[in-house]
């Protein structure tokens, strides 16, 4: 357990101190949201209607942006080999790494969401609802992305391929995330139904993600 905690805090410290991680992700999220009104036009009613979708897409792209560093840095300096050889089960080790990654890149996106919602003419309560769905949904994006990161870690041209592999798998999370946000704003469906399915998807991808990523790492690194 202490080994896992050490790994977790090491990754958090690395992400916070080396820069280029969380801050860039939030900045990218901000830029995506700011670009949308330029493309769509400053129609406030329209922006309010598609605001949750824009926020979800922005968060999805921003979380994708940092995924290729999730395991690649450890692969380059050799610490991934040590993690593979350690007695700690690889599944738990990658879970700790993914949790640290979510804490440093996913959570800042969630925190920034209510503020960015104001740009899209979403009032405070609506922005909080979207942030809540992102809080439930972004761990799923991280754990699905973990599979892609593990598959592409040993490839030299893995960055773009990672996006191609991961994005189709995130379709269900996107669907239920946006429909939960919309249910909170306009109804008529109850908020609970899509939201609980979103939580279920997150738990499901937690299980699938760590086992598939560990399997992919074992096969790829030998």
């Amino acid at each position, binding site marked *: 357990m202490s080994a896992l905690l050490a790994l977790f805090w090491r990754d958090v410290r690395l992400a916070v101190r080396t820069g280029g991680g969380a801050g860039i992700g939030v900045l990218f999220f901000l830029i995506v949201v700011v670009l949308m009104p330029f493309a769509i036009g400053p129609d406030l009613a329209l922006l309010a209607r598609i605001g949750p979708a824009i926020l979800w897409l922005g968060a999805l792209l921003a979380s994708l942006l940092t995924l290729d560093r999730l395991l690649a840095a450890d692969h380059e300096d050799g610490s991934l080999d040590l993690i593979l050889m350690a007695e700690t089960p690889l599944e738990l080790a990658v879970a700790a790494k993914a949790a640290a990654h979510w804490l440093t890149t996913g959570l800042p996106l969630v925190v920034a969401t209510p503020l960015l919602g104001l740009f899209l003419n979403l009032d405070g309560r609506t922005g909080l609802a979207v942030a809540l769905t992102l809080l439930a949904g972004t761990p799923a994006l991280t754990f699905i992305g973990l*599979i892609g990161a593990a*598959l592409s870690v040993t*490839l030299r*041209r*893995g960055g773009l*391929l990672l996006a*191609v*592999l991961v*994005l*189709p*798998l995130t*379709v*269900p999370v996107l*669907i*239920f995330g946006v*429909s939960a946000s919309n249910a909170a704003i306009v109804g008529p*469906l109850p908020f609970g139904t899509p939201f609980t*399915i979103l939580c279920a*998807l997150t738990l*499901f991808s937690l299980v*699938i993600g760590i086992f*598939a990523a560990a*399997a*992919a790492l074992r*096969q*790829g690194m030998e």
Partner: protein
Amino acid sequence: MALIDLANPTRFVSLAERVLPWLIGATAIAFAVGLQQVYGAPDDYQQGATVKIMFIHVPSAWLSMLCWALMSAAALGTLVWRHPMADVAAKAAAPIGAAFTFLCLVTGSLWGRPMWGTYWVWDARLTSELVLLLMYLGLIALWRTVEDPSRASRAIAVLTLVGAINLPIIKFSVDWWNTLHQPASVFRIGGSTIDPSILVPLLVMALAFTLLFVTLHVAAMHNEILRRRVRTLMLLQAQAAPGSAT
């Protein structure tokens, strides 16, 4: 002949060469019978002759899913038993599956234009088939990125299995998403609601397409084994060449 006997690529190649002419013949006969049946099938009273697109569309859709199922079985063979032919089977199946998925989407939109008035709607079935195509393309991209085929196969087996778990979820979520926005305009065809005059040609065509898939798959596996041999021979030749570092 047990499955383990096929683990020897040489034996598989000789078997494939013996079986392929028969498979090609059977495919040709099945297509001849199927097309004759389709020609004789009555036009739909509303859709006219365009209903005949169905005889290509439905078997392609079926094979697009069967092919992923086959790749998942091969992925299990790769990961669990390290069966040497399993990754050859998986690699050979991916482009064929993508082709059938593409065929399904193209015939579907050509059928949709006269019937629904548009080439594309964001209907549940169409969307999940499109996601399936994207996943096939991602898989093929991964095959082409990793140089060493035996190492690629195990990574890809993981992705294939994840995809196999995810496809029903995608299907289910897309169904749900569709019913939110688009009430009961889904086109449903229950097996029992089809008249025998159309159902029989459809089943014959499905058989013909399945035979075509098996033929193409065996031929592609055969080619893949030869391709790997050529690759090994070229590597050996490059090693033995004068001036190369030894």
